[in-house]
């Protein structure tokens, strides 16, 4: 089992990704998808330094939904901010967030979240991963932003990946 399926979740993802890509549930595509799902992780295994443990599926789903909601909210804020630049320029600022997250997979996920949310841009990660610098589009309250970031993104990621 371990030998032929080194990362079962990756295989599952590739299998469904394949079916989605071909937009079909025919037996032929399923067979092809199965082959791809077995071969790709075997080829990828030497490239992955550490296997990423994934736990708490419920928390992962909640996190994805929350990020989706935050993206919509933040996109709306940025759109309003852009429309009102003339009268009230956005208060763009750099924020340094102390990080407790160390796992590379979790940090990659955090980078995805900060980039996908339009209001934040990942700017710098301390070499020892102890702090993260973000650029925020319209910063109202720095402490509140840091608390939101740590509670809503960092804590669930820590629980999921570490």
């Amino acid at each position, binding site marked *: 089992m371990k030998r032929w399926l080194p990362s079962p979740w990756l295989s599952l993802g590739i299998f469904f990704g394949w079916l989605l890509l071909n937009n079909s549930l025919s037996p032929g595509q399923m067979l092809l998808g199965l082959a791809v799902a077995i071969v790709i992780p075997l080829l990828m295994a030497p490239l992955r330094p550490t296997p990423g443990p994934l736990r708490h599926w419920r928390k992962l789903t909640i996190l994805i939904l929350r990020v989706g909601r935050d993206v919509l909210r933040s996109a709306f804020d940025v*759109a309003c901010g*852009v429309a009102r630049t003339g009268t009230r320029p956005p208060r763009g600022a750099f924020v340094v967030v102390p990080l407790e997250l160390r796992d590379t997979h979790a940090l990659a996920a955090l980078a995805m979240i900060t980039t996908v949310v339009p209001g934040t*841009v990942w700017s*710098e990660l301390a070499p020892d991963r102890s702090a993260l610098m973000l650029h925020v589009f319209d910063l109202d309250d720095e402490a509140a932003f840091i608390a939101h970031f740590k509670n809503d993104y960092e804590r669930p990621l820590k629980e999921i990946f570490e």
Partner: protein
Amino acid sequence: MMPPLGELVVAALLLGSGIVVLLAATGLWRLRDFFSRMHAPALASTLAAWIVTLASIVHFSTRSGGLSLHVWLIIIVLSITAPITTIVLARAALFRRRQAGDELPAPLGDGC
């Protein structure tokens, strides 16, 4: 043949997405500094892309009958790959502006 209601929904979604992209473009033009400008195109690659994807799903699903979800892969791949270019751009801008001596937060840790 598509039902007229479906066509209406698709047209409204595409129009909405167009408005969002237009706002993103004006943001690029009107915002003052580089880092603020980085936020505007993110609108196009998230919200606008999501709305177009939704329009595409509605269009192909109502036309062919079955649920047609494959365009959904676009936003997944977009979300996975966008951080690469965004982070490289932000890092390059920080590096250049620090070299130029602009007023920016000090590098975290031992200057990396």
